[in-house]
């Protein structure tokens, strides 16, 4: 029996990531029998507010991958302008290709079939360090980030501490 192309592609990426992991995150499967649901642990990037934290997120790939993007959701509580309060990540490269409903993004900024788990995660990690407050998913966080940064920092520090406790090793 032959696996669909998406599964083969994901399996290849997983094997490569296990052998040569990329700095800043570690990727595996939520369930070893389901190649479409990934579990990723993002190591809080150094020199950012999120340093020291361990943020768990899930990636849900569609069968149409790589033609359509996966969805990404933070399981660990995190306070960030571009991550909504449910943990869903709002980042342009994960937006469906084609017409942009809101007219914000160029086609080149949205999903492209060349993206892999690695490129997605690298984008997300850089987003942690450098939020984009033009299209916030968490309006409160974005407002705080802009207007009362100390409070924003405090909330992030709380998340970091909490993530350390939940992910105690």
């Amino acid at each position, binding site marked *: 029996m032959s696996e669909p192309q998406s599964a083969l592609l994901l399996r290849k990426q997983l094997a490569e990531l296990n*052998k040569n992991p990329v700095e800043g995150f570690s990727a595996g499967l939520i369930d070893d029998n389901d190649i479409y649901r990934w579990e990723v642990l993002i190591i809080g990037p150094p020199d950012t507010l999120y340093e020291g934290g361990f943020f768990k997120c899930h990636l849900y790939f569609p069968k149409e991958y790589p033609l359509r993007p996966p969805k990404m959701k933070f399981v660990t509580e995190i306070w960030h302008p571009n991550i909504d309060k449910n943990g869903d990540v709002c980042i342009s490269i994960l937006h469906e290709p084609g017409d942009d409903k809101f007219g914000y993004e160029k086609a080149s900024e949205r999903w492209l079939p060349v993206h892999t788990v690695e490129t997605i995660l690298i984008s997300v990690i850089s987003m942690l360090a450098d939020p984009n407050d033009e299209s916030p998913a968490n309006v409160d966080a974005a407002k705080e980030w802009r207007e009362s940064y100390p409070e924003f920092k405090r909330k992030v520090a709380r998340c970091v501490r909490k993530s350390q406790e939940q992910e105690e090793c």
Partner: protein
Amino acid sequence: MADDVPVDSGPEKVTEASQKPEDDSKKEPDAQAPTIPENQTQSESKPQTSEEGASAAAAPPKKKITVHVKTPKEKESFEVDAEINIKDFKELIAPKFNAEPEQLCLIFAGKIIKDADNLQTHNIKDGLTMHLVIRAAPRSNENTPQRPPADIGATPFNLGSLGGLAGLDSLGLGSTNFMEIQNRMQSELLSNPDLLRSLLDNPLVQRLMNDPENMRALITRNPQMQDLMERNPEISHMLNNPELLRQTMELARNPSMLQELMRSHDRAMSNLESIPGGYNALHRMYRDIQEPMLSAASEQFSQNPFSGLMDNTQINNPQQGTENREPLPNPWSRSSTNPSPTTPGRNVVNNPPMASLLQQMSENPSMIQNMLSAPYTRSVLEALAADPNMANSVLADNPLLTRYPQLQEQMRTMMPQFLQQLQSPEMQNLMTNPQALNAIMQIQQGMETLRQQAPSLINTFAPPTIPTGTNPTTQNTTGTTTSSTTTSSGATGSTTSAPNVTPGGDPFSEFMARMVAGMGAGTDQSLPPEQRYQQQLEQLAAMGFLNPIEKLLAVGTGIESGISSPEDFHGATIVLYRRFISFLVLY
């Protein structure tokens, strides 16, 4: 990685020892194996199958795999037993990364690998790579360079309110739990962190802490704390909840309990978590309350000139840590920091510790009562009274007194009576009488006014001699010496039973006598009494003697006849004042 020498773990050696000798010879080819990438499954056997098969009957062969461990900076390879326990694995790799096993945090396939697991649980096979995060050392003073002391005075609680955690992290101290932060703060702010702990363990402090009202008063008086409360309304809210406050103090006192709560997900914690908002409340409590409170408290302890006493005599007095942290202010001296004349008499009361101590004592007699009646205090006092040497050593070690040898000498001779006096019920009654304390406060303010308004008067009345032999010129130039001498000698002078009070040993009564005498003799009798005695009246009014003055004015007599003898004066308030001062001198 080809050059990497395989490191043997302890358990590995044990298993090898139990194997047959052939296994040792087999180890050679094995050691070089890791460099060759093996795309093999776990069940695949080694090249030496036949040899192994012979020994397999007795003990199943241990399969070796090579795993790589990657940190942001380096990548190391280790040849280990395929079923090695993670805890052992951490111990094995820790030296390579110059870290303690507890600091290591291994991550594989999106999961943090726990100590109890082994490599197989996570399906970590030959040639795979794990992430390694090295966390900050649990004790900063051992493994990380000491940071310069935080300037708590300038930015009191930025540490807590402005994301101080992230700040610490960015300094490379990536904190992982609250105990670390606490330790770090203590080691920064105090040269001796145990001091704080021992203070917190002191039964007296515990008693204080168990009374939420007292705690509240103490905390709210602290200007830094007030500042904090302004910024975080939730804190003032919490302070209004005595039960919560009590729990917080309990936690602050019991580091192991704190650690337990912060580190382990035990039943208690999960219970708390299951309460809606309980988890958040706990966290808020740690960060917003305990942390700033510790820093506030630590700062005060570290500035306490009497803290040296504790190391030598184990006198752990709550008062000395929490409020009276400065040398006794000198109401008589012309201090260099004179306030503007428009705010007369604010110098002494402006002195925050003094003012707040006085205020607290007057408003909160039960606190003093508690303190005095505590068996601990009593035993300390008794010990001091019984053993003059002990008292001497206290005196000798007191940094305040060492600067003034003659004062020290004087205090030494006066110590026994002083202690006696301190234990007398009379004294304790005074301390618990709010009105008496109020009176003392008024007198003190009044003396300050007097000092500012009529410094010449003070000079005039300054006693010509002092038992220690300090001559008048030094008195005028070194204010602290004068006042300290005055207070200490006054303290003993008021002890009626004291047999060896020197005639001139009571400068204050002498001062009063002179004042009265001066008023009687040196003024122009032709003027009406109000004018004649105006200056003195003002001074007395400022000293809090409002009623006597009204009375005096009404009858039109001289002050000297109103205060017929210095003894009356003493009897009424001065004794109280001096005793109070002497009390302060001890603490």
